[in-house]
């Protein structure tokens, strides 16, 4: 059998490598199963992968689950400020009852998780450091994700929406003064050339996004036992790699910005709590308004130690 896997990133991205590990393992297992990877959005655009996946027109995807938050509101919890504290916490969350609930929602759409994984990100400012809510007041800010836009607006920032690829030019011409995105995007778009200060992922970080490798469940069920076993072995290998790499990317971003002479400012525990307080009044509140079962899921997520 031949499976088609789509994702939006370049072939040097960690998420492509995660897909590759699974694909290579399956190929080496020699169980008459090949996974054909379509990188860089060459098959489907980033946000348009969930529905084809759920219909079985696409077999697998590495997908930021919050992109489908407009279809399934609970998915918005996988990109919620302050919900995840660090990568080890994220790994524990993957094993929690919260994630089981999310997976049961996916199952309703005939979707299952093959590899769990979170990536983290920070803040950068062109004129000043951004660690606490007061810092963003009055700045034109680009945030990654609805919940973050709501939180930043609550802190007094002005929200400008644009693709992460536009951040560099917008900062250069002065349209934008602050941005929040993933560590790897900060590095690959060379934002360090445009900013004065960078807030990397450290002991505390706000921005964690769940970006699992998903698969159509019926397609998986249609595989032979040997094929399933090979796939899940590859998935276990990929998951371990994903967690290690996610941590490395944060360290790498810190190093690159530091070497470029950018000031580094770490978020403190108090800063984190101040952001969380604002998020509760803004993004959490907006999330709960849209979802009757939201409170239970939010409590489940917050209960993970």
């Amino acid at each position, binding site marked *: 059998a031949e499976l088609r896997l789509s994702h939006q990133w370049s072939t040097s991205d960690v998420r492509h490598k995660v897909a590759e590990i699974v694909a290579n393992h399956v190929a080496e297992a020699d169980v008459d199963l090949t996974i054909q990877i379509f990188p860089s959005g060459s098959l489907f655009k980033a946000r348009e992968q969930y*529905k084809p996946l759920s219909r079985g027109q696409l077999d697998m995807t590495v997908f930021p689950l919050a992109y489908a938050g*407009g279809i399934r509101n609970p998915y918005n919890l996988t990109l919620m400020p302050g919900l995840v504290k660090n990568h080890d916490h994220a790994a524990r969350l993957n094993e929690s009852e919260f994630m089981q609930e999310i997976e049961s929602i996916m199952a309703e759409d005939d979707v299952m998780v093959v590899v769990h994984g979170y990536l983290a990100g920070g803040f950068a400012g062109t004129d000043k450091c951004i660690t606490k809510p007061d810092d963003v007041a009055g700045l034109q800010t680009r945030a990654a994700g*609805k919940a973050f*836009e709501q939180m930043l607006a609550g802190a007094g920032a*002005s*929200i*400008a929406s644009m693709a992460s690829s536009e951040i560099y030019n917008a900062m250069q011409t002065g349209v934008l003064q602050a941005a929040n995105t993933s560590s790897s995007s900060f590095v690959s778009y060379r934002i360090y050339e445009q900013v004065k200060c960078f807030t990397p992922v450290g002991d505390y970080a706000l921005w964690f996004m769940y970006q699992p490798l998903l698969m159509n469940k019926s397609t998986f069920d249609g595989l032979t036992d040997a094929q399933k076993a090979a796939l899940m072995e590859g998935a276990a290998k990929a998951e371990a790699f994903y967690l290690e790499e996610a941590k490395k990317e944060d360290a790498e971003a810190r190093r690159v910005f530091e070497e470029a002479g950018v000031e580094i400012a770490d978020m403190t525990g108090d800063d984190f709590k101040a952001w969380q307080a604002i998020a509760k009044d803004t993004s959490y509140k907006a999330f709960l308004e849209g979802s009757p079962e939201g409170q239970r899921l939010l409590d489940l997520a917050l209960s993970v130690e």
Partner: protein
Amino acid sequence: MSGTSTAIPAAKHGGNPFLRAVGIVSQCCGVISAMMILAAVIITCQMIFVRFVLNASTIWQTETVIYLMIAATMLGLPYVQYLRGHVNVDLLPLALSRGPRKLLAVATLGLALLVIGAMLWHGLHFWHEAWDWGERSGSVWDPKLWVPYLALPVGFGLYFLQLVADLIAMLMGIDKPFGLSDDVSFVEARSAGETE
């Protein structure tokens, strides 16, 4: 196009009420489409003003402008077809004599109807699915997506209608195949279609 505001070609109705009605519908679509483009211009300027002068958040503008442009494109399809403005390469029709040329025109219009019909049918499903799931765009503004998606079935439907009218007009001899007169020279056939 721009500047050469001399008479531009358009679908002929030859007094046939159905053809005339379809033509009027297509022209109305064109007016709405142009107004949507104009609205998109004004909203974008408003967005720049809000951000650059007032230094405030811009929440709804980007999406609104995108959806307006898509709707303008879809509603523009029948109108541009009516105006014979969809650019084509008519090497083969020009090389053919009258009879085969008409056959080719029937074949290409038939194929176009099939594929636009498929886009209409599946566009309807696409729209209905978004309606059914209560799908939202996922931004802070978070509009329901069935609204912009509606442009697809409506636009392809009206385009389909104009293509049907064109096929009828050609079969009834009201309009020429590919709009080419019988003894057309290579040069005369060219003066109409323009692009960037």
